[in-house]
């Protein structure tokens, strides 16, 4: 297999996603579950950036020397995935924070972080 940077990143992202998922499905501790999902998110972000990577190109920022307004389109990579991932990271943080706050609240009720404790509603 001819490993390139983006392929490594892709595989890494996918592995992190799978590990995160695995953790999210197997761990009983609420914090662990949240943690697993944040790993999953990180993996997803890596995956996205890796998918948009163009080998050999640089960041889409005009620095006046290597990248100029004129050669921007030729040397810089696609800026859109970056913008999207940026958004995704921030939103991911928001979700994680909310989940943590919820976990704290749940912990206040039952003095436990075991997800099996919170199954009063069912069927």
């Amino acid at each position, binding site marked *: 297999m001819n490993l390139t940077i983006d392929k490594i990143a892709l595989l890494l992202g*996918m592995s992190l996603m799978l590990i995160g998922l695995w953790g999210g499905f197997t761990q009983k501790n609420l914090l662990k579950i949240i943690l697993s999902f944040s790993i999953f998110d990180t993996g997803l972000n890596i995956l996205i950036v890796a998918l948009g990577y163009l080998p050999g190109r640089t960041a889409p920022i005009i*620095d006046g020397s290597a990248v100029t307004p004129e050669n921007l389109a030729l040397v810089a990579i696609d800026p859109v995935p970056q913008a999207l991932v940026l958004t995704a990271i921030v939103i991911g943080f928001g979700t994680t924070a909310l989940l943590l706050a919820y976990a704290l609240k749940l912990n206040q009720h039952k003095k436990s972080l075991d997800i099996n404790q919170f199954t009063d509603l069912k069927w």
Partner: protein
Amino acid sequence: MKIKNSLVILLVMAFGVFLFQVYKQHQTQGSLNKTAAYYNTNTPDEVGASNVVTAIVVTYRGLDTLGEVTVLFLTAMIVGYILRHGGKEKPMKNNTSEILITAANVLIPGSIILGVYVFINGHLTPGGGFQGGAIIGTAITLMILADPLGSVKKAVLHITESLSGFTYILIGLAGLLFAGGFLDNRILPLGNLGNLLSAGAIPLIYSLIGLKVGTELSSIIASINETGNKTA
């Protein structure tokens, strides 16, 4: 339990198979697609920002960014709301170590300045409102931790947050009224590429975002930190 675990393994593996399909289908592109090419070609002229990512984040896809800010806003609100009946924790003096206070005193001003720098230069260099905001947020959080009795008034945080958000909207509105559309940065002159005061309203917007994000992040942490453990 064993069955469940093997089910999980099966699910994860199946998802792995799915991801592998994505991997297999992926072809590394040689050139930019039309959207990216457009951005990389026209950003300097149309938006006047050196950092194309910033141009996209603030202007081209400004609506997304506004949404992003809104997400953080909501998060801050809701975290407070979730923990509303936890009661205030009596902060304990001895919780804060000397080291932390010292470190805070050294770090905080630096951090804030760094943060401000990052978002003001968002259109020129990597980074911007979110990154700068996060740095500021960390700084404020340090302040809160170092001074649990609360020299940082939450009200100040809220007012800053609200006003910066509101101004952001107003600038967007100005774009709608005076320029091409909602959140158009060209309500202010584009200036010269590479200057601090260029790229129209981008520096302004990014600063507001930075402030807002910073205050939001810190108020999230503050809310959590202040919660006691009373059961509602």
